[in-house]
């Protein structure tokens, strides 16, 4: 079976490194990007099985990146999950559901919990 490909988008280099290490140890292929713009650029040439988006990023927030992904017919069906520090209100979640977000992983997270949830999404 081919390796599952996961794209990470986070402006915090340490978190990018941490999650990459965790995922690679589990046998996933990882594409690490540090901004929304870089992620959208890479999506032109690659098709990941899951995109893990940080919510709070300068210049372009995770939500804006997700909107762009859904707008493009080539990428609109890709799986997206958020990494975030904020806990969303019900109304906020409703809005995000329109963007077909599969999960919200709250920072700080448990390493094992993170891997479990990703495994679930990719099933």
């Amino acid at each position, binding site marked *: 079976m081919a390796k599952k490909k996961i794209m990470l988008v986070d402006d*915090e280099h340490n978190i990018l490194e*941490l999650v990459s290490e965790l995922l690679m140890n589990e046998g996933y292929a990882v594409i690490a990007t540090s901004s929304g713009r870089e992620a959208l650029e890479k999506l032109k040439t690659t098709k990941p099985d899951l995109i893990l988006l940080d919510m709070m990023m*300068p210049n372009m927030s995770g939500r804006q990146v997700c909107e762009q992904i859904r707008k493009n017919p080539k990428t609109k069906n890709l799986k997206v999950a958020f990494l975030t*520090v904020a806990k969303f209100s019900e109304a906020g979640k409703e809005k995000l559901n329109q963007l077909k977000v599969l999960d919200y992983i709250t*920072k700080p997270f448990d390493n094992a919990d993170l891997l479990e949830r990703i495994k679930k999404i990719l099933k």
Partner: protein
Amino acid sequence: MRLGVKLSIIFIILSLVVGFIIALTFFIHSSNIIELRIQNQLEVMNLLKKNQLQTFIEEQVSDLELLSYELKDEYSEMEKLHKENFEEHEKLHEEIRNTLINVIEIDKSFIEIFFLDLGGKIHESSEISSEDKIKEDVDYFIKGLNSSYIGTIDYDILLQIPSLIISTPMKNSEGKVIGVLAGRLNLRAISNLITLRDGLGETGESYLINGFNLVLTNLLFEEGVSFKKKIFTESVVDCLNFNKGFKKYKDYRGEDVYGYYLWIPERGICLITKIDESEALKELSMLKILMVILFILIIIIVTLVSLWLARIITSPIKKLKEATFNLSQGKFQTKLNIHTKDEIEVLANTFVSMAKGLKESRKQLQSYSKDLERKVKQRTKQFEDKTKEAEDSKKATLNIMEDVAETNKKLKETEKLLKKNLREMKLLDKQKDEFISITSHELKTPITSIKGFIQLLSDPKIIENKRKRKKYVGIVNREVNRLNVLISDILDLSRLDLRTVKFNYEKVDIKELLDTVRKENELKAKAKKIKLELSFGKGLSKIENDRTRLLQIFTNLVVNAINYTHKGKVLITANKQKTNIHFTVEDTGIGISKKNFTKIFERFYQVDSGLTREIGGTGLGLAITKELVTKMNGKIWLESKLGKGTKFHVLLPINQKIEDKKKP
């Protein structure tokens, strides 16, 4: 431009154009005529030469015929004597030879005359050496037996001279042909005839050419080339194709010439008459000079005439112009001395009557305006009286209205103030929410890293990998430090917000203070190879302030300056300014764009997020600095240019007010 000048120019241009066209036509026409005349002249000369040549040869032939007739008796006698008396025969032979020699001596046209018998043998000759030679197969012998014969001009190989031989039959007294009398013509005589240059000017000449392009006569411009030089000019080539004609071409010297050429079929030669173009057109160049002189004369005459004409036309107009000017100055000229008996005189008359009318109407106007003035004064006085009455009653009304307006105004101001307060409160509320959200993000980010990496470090695979283990421990260490600084910054800020900060005011030595800042950051600057310099103004006193807080302010600014500078220096200055101390922290770093001048003092504002992470600020330093400076009754601002550097200014009072000292 003045009218007179304009008119003159028009006259001159018109006459010049006409004159030029006439002259040009005349010139082209006369040059055609001159060329035609040259052709005629050359053709006539050519024909004349041809006739002279023909006549000369024919004369020689008839001379030869006459001679043969004269010698008829001698040859008849010799015919009879031949076999009987050798002595008599010899005597007669001698006699005939002497006659021939005599003829040659008298008539220089012949070089040699000789008699050939029916066998083609030269019997008697003026040149004894050629006697007894046999010439039975030559044209002059064969053809000469029948009638008189003229040969072609050839080069005699034996004699090595050009020659033309003529011959005629010799008959005895019974009319029977007994031989041929032939004569070799002196070609110099022909050459002289042809090259005689009567009526051909200085460069004109005629010459003969034979069928092999060989010159037969002497040339004017080259000596001794007769029967040696070959010529291939245009005229020669065309002539040797049996043509005649007139041409302008380059002659054997390469000069431009006009030439007429004629093929003479009877002689098999070509006769050319030519003249240099420069000489032929001498008249034309004379004509050119004449025309230029004429042209200049015309220009002078036309200019004088046109100036005179323009003067006649413009002088009455000038008078009118002066009159108009006078009119505009208020002088009414009712007389104009213009008698040109044309439209201008009519105009002058109309002008005079107009001036008269104007003079009249102005008089009327002046009296009318005086009347008006008087009436206006009267009315004004009436109006002023009435206005005074009205104003008195108006004042009373106004006082009441002012009171009402004042109350209204105050009400509105209060309303405005209330609205403003409400807006500010809403804004503050929103800012508070945002601050809490950003603060929680900033706090949770390092916590996430710390938690994640510590968990990772407990993974046996990572524990075994020494490189990764070292790296992750480093990350955790740095993130803990970051969290520590962040928390202390946030606490600082919230204390400042809640006004629970207490300043311990004391007399602080500025030089010592800033030197401490420099010492603390010297290593950091050295690591980046940046100079860290201090500069103090004169008369720097001690400042009344909180030393720890001042250290915090300048350390913040200096650390920022070092972090954002890659080469050059950071300069700290302090100068006394009346009741304040003016500090600056100047760097040669990346600079800040103008739109960010106020934003950088906002909390968690990061000009370039990526860079800030690398450099490791919390995004709160400048916000705290600004809060501190403001609380110390000071001011902070900056100037900067992208790529050039940034200069922060801090203005702090030397002495704090008493109330601030007491205030917690």
